[in-house]
């Protein structure tokens, strides 16, 4: 029974990892930009949530109403102001610039919030659980997973059924020809980054209510996000959810065997997938 429990907890944890990964996957898909600062942006969102709850006295989950638009705005400005200038045939400039951004965000958070671990308090919700026979599932992890499924489902729907999604796919296919259609790629990229950071806003808050956070933990969230994307297969959103779940399950099973093996097991699962299926389990579907 403890194994089934570990499996279920891992699946639910995978929802959070999928949320870390969805924003990464989106902007890589649309503009081939690898955002090294993604993890730190998640942490930034958590701190924004923290400030919102303190200043406005809002429940952390309600703080999303403030944090999501703020992060989206930041994303659009960041893309139009800085990142668009780095995009081109060379993959290195955006890597270097987002790496620099990552350092800046970490240090700014350290300066503003100190290195003390913080946590957002959601009261009774934190310990609430549903019993399933002898298993019990936390309400918060269940909620996180449900949000992840909803976010990825809406992203997928948006990609294949709306004008914006059509524009994303067109720009991803061929930037020049998309321009000929009257699409300003700089604006489309700005929207994509805004969407990516809006999801980061959700992920950051859910991270902040689940565990302690401090300015230095962004790097590990970035790695989890990357691993989920690669396991699932680049450019496939449902694959990203699957990737997050596989990573989460590997971690909780690993921790069940030996508490020290949690991260190791996750990385091993990632390496095995990379060795056996270098393009991921579900590489980009057509249509």
């Amino acid at each position, binding site marked *: 029974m403890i194994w089934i429990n570990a499996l279920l907890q891992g699946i639910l944890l995978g929802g959070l990892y999928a949320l870390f990964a969805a924003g990464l996957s989106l902007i890589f898909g649309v503009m081939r930009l690898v955002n090294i600062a993604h993890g730190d942006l998640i942490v930034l969102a958590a701190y924004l949530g923290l400030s919102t709850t303190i200043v406005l006295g809002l429940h952390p989950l309600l703080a999303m109403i403030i944090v999501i638009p703020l992060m989206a705005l930041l994303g659009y400005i960041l893309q139009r102001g800085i990142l668009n200038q780095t995009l081109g045939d060379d993959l290195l400039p955006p890597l270097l610039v987002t790496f620099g951004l990552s350092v800046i965000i970490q240090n700014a958070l350290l300066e503003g919030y100190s290195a003390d671990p913080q946590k957002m308090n959601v009261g009774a919700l934190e310990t609430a659980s549903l019993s399933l026979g002898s298993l019990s599932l936390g309400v918060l992890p269940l909620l996180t997973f449900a949000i992840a499924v909803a976010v990825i489902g809406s992203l997928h729907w948006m990609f294949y059924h709306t004008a914006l999604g059509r524009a994303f796919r067109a720009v991803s296919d061929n930037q020049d020809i998309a321009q*000929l259609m009257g699409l300003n790629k700089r604006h489309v990229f700005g929207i994509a980054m805004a969407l990516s950071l809006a999801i980061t806003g959700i992920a950051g808050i859910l991270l902040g209510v689940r565990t302690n956070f401090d300015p230095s933990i962004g790097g590990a969230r970035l790695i989890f996000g990357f691993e989920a994307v690669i396991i699932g297969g680049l450019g496939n959103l449902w694959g990203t959810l699957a990737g997050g779940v596989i990573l989460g399950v590997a971690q909780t099973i690993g921790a069940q065997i030996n508490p020290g093996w949690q991260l190791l097991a996750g990385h091993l699962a990632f390496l095995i997938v990379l060795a056996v299926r270098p393009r991921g389990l579900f590489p980009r579907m057509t249509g």
Partner: protein
Amino acid sequence: MPEPLLSTSQLCAWYGDFQALFDLDLMINEGEIVAIIGANGAGKTTLMHSIAGLSINKPHQVIYRGRQIGALRADQVAFEGIALVPEGRQLFASLTVEENLVIGAQTGRKGDWQLPTVYQLFPILQERRTTPATELSGGQQQMVAIGRALMANPDLILLDEISLGLAPVIIKTIYAALPGIVEGGMSAMIVEQDISKALAVSSRFYCLQEGRVALEGQSQTVQRDAISRAYFGVQK
């Protein structure tokens, strides 16, 4: 004489580090079909890209309806009413046939060209509307590329090598559609390797050679050997 729809003046353009166009002056009137002919590397595609905004020039080098558009980006030029059917079709692989057509209407310009009219022009596209665009045959892809440009309801359509790599019977079908396209008053600039085809459908032509206009004139009355000389640059 009325003001031309579009003209270039002293247009110089580069293809990478290589200068492809030298002080090019040409123009097209409203409702006119103009052919651009010339050997490979003569600068035909660079000319198309300069007009469409895929390569940026000085503002005054391209004049459209009295406005300087030489420095506009491609998306801004699209809103002005110029559409390019690019060489090699260049359809969006992740989009279905219908999505490729619909995205052509992105500028929101009003006009007769909408999905039903494009499907009327190329009925095969309606049958295959849900297919990923790049799974079609070359000829059908070319129809999508032309339809996509038409969906923008442009005033000027630039057709770059629309017969390239297609079977003669397909080329015939596509060229047969041309009169129906321009009868609504649309102007067209056609780049074509097949000189007789180009001259047959156009009223005037420009022959480019190494980035300069080597010969221009009326398509119906031009002497063949004059074209040969301008085309290959041989002196008699």
